[in-house]
């Protein structure tokens, strides 16, 4: 942790900051904020929601509790595809739109990491 004196819009401010694992953590005027610098951003938003509807990815490290679908199944928007558990809470990962299950990349009981691909979906008529 370092105390930095920065000039922002002509104003002299004090910021506490630390670089960790590709991010800058800062504390400024009562707010703590984790910032991914521009040069690291192309790796994709770590921990953020995946916007590609054809990929169900793990939003956190954890354990796969149940897989509700099989390859070739149709899934409806909002239907739970996989249930996973982290920090003793269960989370349901749902389909973002009506699609078909192309392949299943995880198994029940398995530990998965952040952003691991769990289930691959494809367009219904593909």
């Amino acid at each position, binding site marked *: 942790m370092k105390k930095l004196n920065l000039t922002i819009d002509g104003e002299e401010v004090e910021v506490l900051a*630390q670089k960790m694992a590709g991010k800058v953590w800062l504390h400024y005027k009562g707010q703590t904020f984790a910032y991914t610098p521009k040069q690291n951003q192309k790796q994709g938003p770590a921990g953020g929601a995946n916007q590609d509807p054809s990929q169900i990815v793990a939003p956190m*490290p954890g354990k796969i509790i149940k897989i509700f679908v099989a390859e070739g199944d149709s899934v409806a928007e909002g239907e739970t595809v996989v249930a996973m558990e982290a920090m003793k809470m269960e989370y349901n990962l749902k389909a973002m739109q009506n699609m078909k299950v192309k392949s299943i990349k995880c198994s029940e009981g398995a530990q998965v990491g952040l952003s691991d691909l769990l289930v691959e979906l494809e367009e219904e008529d593909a």
Partner: protein
Amino acid sequence: MSDIKSLAIANRGEVAVRIIRACQELGVESVLLHSKADINTRAYRMSDRQICIGDSAVGESYLSIEKNVDGVLASGADAVHPGFGFLSENANFAQALKDNNIQFVGPSPEAIRKMGDKIEAKKIIEAANIPTVPGYNGDDQSLATLKKEAEKIGFPVIVKAAAGGGGRGMKVIQKASEAEEMIDAAKREGLSAFGSEQVFLEKYLDKAKHIEVQIFGDLSGNVVHLFERECSVQRRHQKIVEEAVSGSISTDIRQGMTEAAVKLAKAVNYVGAGTVEFLVQDDAFYFLEMNTRLQVEHPVTELVLGVDLVKAQILNQMNRFSCWNQDLLVPRGHSIECRLYAEDPFSQGIPSTGLIGFQQWPDGPGRRFDFGYEAGDEVTPFYDSMMAKVIVWDETRPRAIKKMLKTLDDIVLFGVKSNIPFLKQILQHPEFVDGSFNTQFINQHFAQGAHPLENQEELEKIGELCFDSLGEVTQVAGAQPSPFSRKWSNV
């Protein structure tokens, strides 16, 4: 009941630290029963002795009766404090300790068995004429029966694991079509967290307040109540903000609930600290459950009454406790607790794990920080995401809110995301400020989690400036060694 020279702690994190502090003040040796993952924690460093009882997964350590009992026997401790969660309400654990002549800081296995089984508890409470929420608590656990009973009660219906608690193994069924999914999920969570898939159903009160009464029983059969706590700010039945006393219940309701709580404790010959939870709606109260253990939110009671519940628990076990006089227990001022969860408040509370790079607790009058990690420690995905608790006391509720906001502003926590921005939004919400909030508060006002930051762009700009000013990081990203690593590298 006899003297305790050495106390084993069958728990982890901030509550283990809380119990160690009590041991230190009482001159009792503390022995931490910990998992492999918890070597880099504050409780490990603070305890007098440490016994590793197993692997990181809870089933291999904190939830294993056999491993905990073996750990206590190996350590030679006289007694065990179970904290909360894990085996704290497990009658078989209390029984196993008793069978091995180890004292358990808590009620008898019989009292735990009766109250810990929510179905059994409901039967006792009905016999004592204390109102309960309509529901189904039958032995027929078939899906067809549960679905039929849920329809009979009328939606929304809540399905709960009979052995559950702490928000796990509970699901709300809004409509008939969701019944199967929710019942299955509650059964699974119950089985994985508590080892039983027995569930029961209850009418879901849609605008109730969650108010609970702290009680304490001594060895001579005296039972006192230590007033109530309001815990209506909940997300997925997990409490986030708690207060003592409630700012919004009538004197009649308070009197009715505290009397009912004492009556119930006496009915099961309750010894030690316990909590009777109620739902309050339309000026009526309903029994919810009794927790036969210390609660996470016990500090707010400690601050308004000037008591030490953990020391009282241990002294009571040693038969050196003279129970408080009920008439002398008078709450003063107002106390608020905020639970700090390791999560991303802007991504619907997804857990956040990782290494803590730096943390700073801004202490001051009427501020208390119960925390389990220090800089260099790693928050792992194996356990509950509660990292710490921030508790404040001030003379009035508005001042306590203001103090909490200032305290949260000045906490610095680098390396793991926390719900602090969310907590600040909750504390400033008009419904929280005027006290009218109920258990639907989060669902109604924060369904997507915390609202986005208003000054996101400003913070990003500052982030970029900081990145430029900080220069190169000397350590390998993500592989910063713990300053305590030398302590355990040869374990």
